[in-house]
């Protein structure tokens, strides 16, 4: 029972802690050293976390209560379609945040922060709701099964401790890499997390025959089992699949490359426009000086 509860935490609750760490970096990392030195200002900056968390508790209750009926909708595809759509939304919001940050300039910093906070709120709300619902359902089953409440509670405490430790470690490691190596590392990890969520959505749609289910490309279960500790971690962080289909692999690569290419194209376009504006300004100043 103890081990089952710990595994339940790693499967269902770990993504919640990971996304919290990944998003907190976006608001407390190297981009945000200006204007937010006070504790209150920091709290206000991270309001998306508290709001998203509270709203998701309501959604978790609604989804858990109605999940049995939801699974019967749309000829038995209801749960998969809803979860897949929400997974797609997580991906789109993370990709938007990834692209928006590359366009950051000092002039419209406040507007960009507002957009980032809104996107973060949506991401946290959906991730918390999806994984929280899974966690709640599984926990209820384990609760009903066990006669040993102590081992269940101990398992929850251990699972929570492991998940929080992983999140804290991830936060500080990425912060270190951002400051010492490149600003972009944590941003790419967030994008990979988003692609992982899309991968899960793809898997759900294959399960209900809404996407073609091609042959399995490889089986790395012997190298890194999905059931192992590292397997759970990489599944939560990157959407690792030991037996990916061709469709999953293709979508994984495409969904990773599209935001990166789009971000670079838009950043280059912005730089070009900014340089053009500067040139126009310079030539106008020069003409006025001549006059």
């Amino acid at each position, binding site marked *: 029972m103890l081990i089952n509860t710990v595994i339940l935490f790693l499967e269902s609750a770990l993504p919640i802690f990971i996304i919290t760490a990944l998003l907190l970096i976006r608001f407390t990392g190297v981009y945000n050293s200006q204007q937010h030195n006070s504790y209150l200002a920091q709290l206000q900056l991270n309001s998306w976390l508290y709001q998203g968390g509270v709203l998701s508790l309501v959604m978790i209750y609604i989804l858990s209560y109605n999940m*049995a009926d939801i699974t019967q909708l749309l000829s*038995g595809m209801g749960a998969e379609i809803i979860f897949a759509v929400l997974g797609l939304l997580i991906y789109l919001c993370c990709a938007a945040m990834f692209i928006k940050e590359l366009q950051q300039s000092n002039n419209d910093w406040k507007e960009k922060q507002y957009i980032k906070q809104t996107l973060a709120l949506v991401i946290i709300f959906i991730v918390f709701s999806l994984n929280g619902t899974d966690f709640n359902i*599984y926990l209820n*089953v384990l609760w009903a099964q066990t006669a040993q409440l102590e081992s269940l509670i101990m398992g929850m405490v251990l699972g929570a401790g492991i998940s929080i430790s992983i999140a804290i470690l991830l936060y500080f490691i990425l912060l270190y890499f951002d400051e010492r190596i490149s600003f972009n590392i944590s941003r790419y990890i967030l994008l990979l997390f988003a692609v992982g969520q899309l991968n899960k959505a793809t898997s759900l749609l294959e399960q209900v*025959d*809404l996407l*073609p*289910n091609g042959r399995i490309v490889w089986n790395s279960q012997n190298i890194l089992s999905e059931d192992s500790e590292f397997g759970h971690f990489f599944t939560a962080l990157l959407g690792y*699949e030991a037996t990916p*289909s061709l469709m999953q692999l293709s979508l994984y690569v495409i969904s990773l490359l599209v935001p990166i290419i789009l971000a670079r194209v838009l950043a280059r376009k912005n730089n070009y426009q900014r340089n053009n504006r500067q040139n126009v300004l310079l030539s106008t100043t020069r003409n006025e000086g001549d006059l």
Partner: protein
Amino acid sequence: MMLKVIKLFIFSALLIFAINALAKRPEYVIELKDHLFFPEQLQIPANKKVKLVIYNRDDSVEEFDSFDLNREKVLYPNKKAVIYIGPLPAGTYRFFGEFHPNSAKGSIVIVSSGDNNVN
């Protein structure tokens, strides 16, 4: 131009969904009763996509889980669940109930039928 590309992408995605959703698949049934799967071993033809309908006749939640088939679905009490598997090559693919793995287990045996149709 960008808008045209997005529209084309959405149209293609909907077309793929429609083609898959409308295709008729052979149907197989598994029942879960007293934390046991019936039949414990199910035979299906190779290289075909099939629809698996799983009825949970128990009063408790179970989860149909299979690493071999890459499928996972929660089975609610007295409800049915639908999943699609395949096309798969010949072999034995194990599944189990996550909450009662010692009793709720079974396998799907994929047999070569000599028919090479895929999907």
